[in-house]
């Protein structure tokens, strides 16, 4: 019998994180391919609501680790507890949701349990001697397939949207209270939280957005995008590097660490289309991408594309819009 697949769930203040369900779906799918059962683990304190929700999934065991030192997340305490659970379960594969929280402790966990590590998995296939894990490299311009050697156990974090939460099978999960042998040791003191970027521009309601990427080349050259935004009646936004360079204020950033938008028209100028950007704009109705690299991943989510220099195309686009408005 193959060793179990262990799914590490994420919660916040007792509510299950959206991506926990995707991780369960991924874990079930991996176990189906490998043979073997699926178990899950949830860490925290005051977990009754989340425990009830998880116990309605098809899991062979559901380990619940409650401890006051796990009440708020710290990598030290979480990894300490997870090492004990992994030692007890002896999983062949540990599946985690690829969230900021997971990435924060993933390297440390891999080091502690001496497992192979494959972060940001978007899919898998079976090969002769195990699974091949798919993950993006070079900002999503390429996909790589990764094998795990010598039958080592592996930690995989699954990227948002790669496994459908609706695919998670329901059933009955026997709850097992996991008793830790040592108290988990928090290695951080939480002092508070702060909103980023003061008086926020809310782009979530914008009907049209012109988004600028690093391909603009220089903050001084922003006027081509401003003119286009004006001709369209659109809001101006940007990818992260444009904001990091100080070319636009932080509250105009789109993506996983910025705003999530769903306008009817999204024009991406010189944006490559890294996953952290795409998660913020993939709900847009119509996407136009201008990029001089025909292989830029942004084209795979765009409806219309132009391969070429944005500094030539953008003024032409603005002129064409103005002409069309006049006619």
């Amino acid at each position, binding site marked *: 019998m193959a060793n179990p697949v262990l799914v590490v769930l994420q919660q916040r203040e007792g509510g299950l994180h959206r991506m926990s369900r995707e991780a369960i779906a991924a874990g079930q799918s991996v176990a189906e391919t490998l043979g073997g059962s699926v178990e899950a683990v949830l860490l925290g304190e005051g977990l009754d609501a989340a425990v009830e929700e998880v116990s309605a999934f098809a899991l062979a065991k559901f380990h619940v680790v409650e401890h006051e030192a796990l009440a708020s997340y710290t990598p030290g305490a979480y990894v300490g507890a997870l090492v004990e659970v992994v030692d007890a379960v002896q999983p062949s594969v540990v599946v985690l949701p690829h*969230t900021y929280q997971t*990435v*924060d402790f993933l390297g440390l966990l891999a080091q502690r349990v001496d497992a192979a590590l494959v972060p940001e998995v978007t899919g898998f296939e079976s090969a002769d001697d195990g699974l091949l894990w798919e993950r993006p490299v070079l900002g999503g311009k390429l996909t790589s397939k990764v094998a795990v050697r010598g039958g080592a156990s592996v930690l995989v974090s699954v990227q948002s949207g790669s496994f459908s939460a609706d695919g998670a099978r329901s059933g009955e999960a026997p709850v097992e209270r996991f008793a830790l042998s040592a108290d988990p040791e928090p290695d951080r003191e939480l002092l508070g*939280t702060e909103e980023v970027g003061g008086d926020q521009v809310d782009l979530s309601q914008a009907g049209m957005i012109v988004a600028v990427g690093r391909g603009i080349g220089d903050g001084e050259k922003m006027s081509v995008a401003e003119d286009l935004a004006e001709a369209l009646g659109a809001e101006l936004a940007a990818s*992260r590097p444009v904001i990091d360079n100080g070319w636009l204020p932080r509250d105009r950033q789109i993506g996983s660490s910025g705003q999530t938008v769903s306008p009817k028209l999204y024009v991406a100028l010189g944006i490559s289309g890294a996953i952290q950007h795409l998660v913020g704009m993939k709900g847009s109705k119509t996407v136009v991408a201008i990029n001089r690299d025909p292989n830029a991943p942004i084209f795979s989510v765009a409806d219309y594309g132009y391969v070429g220099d944005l500094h030539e195309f953008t003024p032409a686009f603005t002129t064409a819009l103005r002409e069309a408005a006049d006619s």
Partner: protein
Amino acid sequence: MRIAVCIKQVPDTEARLRLRRDERWIDEEDVPFVINESDEYALEEALQLAEASEGEVVVFTLGPERAKEALRKALAVGADRAVHLRDDALEGGDASTTGAALARAIEREECDLVLTGSQSDDVGFGATGGVIAGHLGWPHAWLVMGVEVEEEGTARVVREMESGVNEIVRLRLPAVLEIQAGLNHPRYASLRGIMQAKKKELSEVGASDLDLAPEATGAAGALTEVVSVGFPESGEGAEILEGDAEVAARQLVERLRREAKVL
């Protein structure tokens, strides 16, 4: 305070990519290499912390001969010393082997703080800093947007979280801080800096200096192996508008009006 900064040399994100013949990685010939973006911010943060404490900044990289250029640039920008983990046996590994080797090298230099970037722009594990922290037995934090060293041997650290909220935490020092892009404004090298860099110490270490057996590190020691890379299937993909900019722009306006009906 002696601050270690881990910098990685990666292909410029603007580079056009071709696959290597074995289709396990890109063909690196003619590809311009640069310092990984978040590592530039880590270096700047280290320089500022060192300036405030009369400290020293030591940069580390693990990579082939070309990676020396990244170290030289870091020295020109203001780092005091550089250590090059240069050994074919160390190459081709993953976050676990690279992190283990870097941790050994950092230990030899007796550093008080380690700064890394948050994610490399090529393989993007986001994990090497955590592995280093595990080996050193130090606390760590990923996605750091602010660092203040406090008198009590602690640091007040601002961490980025999803959806526009930062978390403020306190960590015991020594620690490993994985710096996120955007927390400062990296300085440029001055001509004087470039001249001075030529006189600064740049040492090389190999696997044996780090007490790492060749079969336990790099490609041979890694538990993972990239078996192939390829261009992703683009799904439906975009309709690519042909012609020069003016023709294509007029077509686009037409499509947005009549097909997509968004204008």
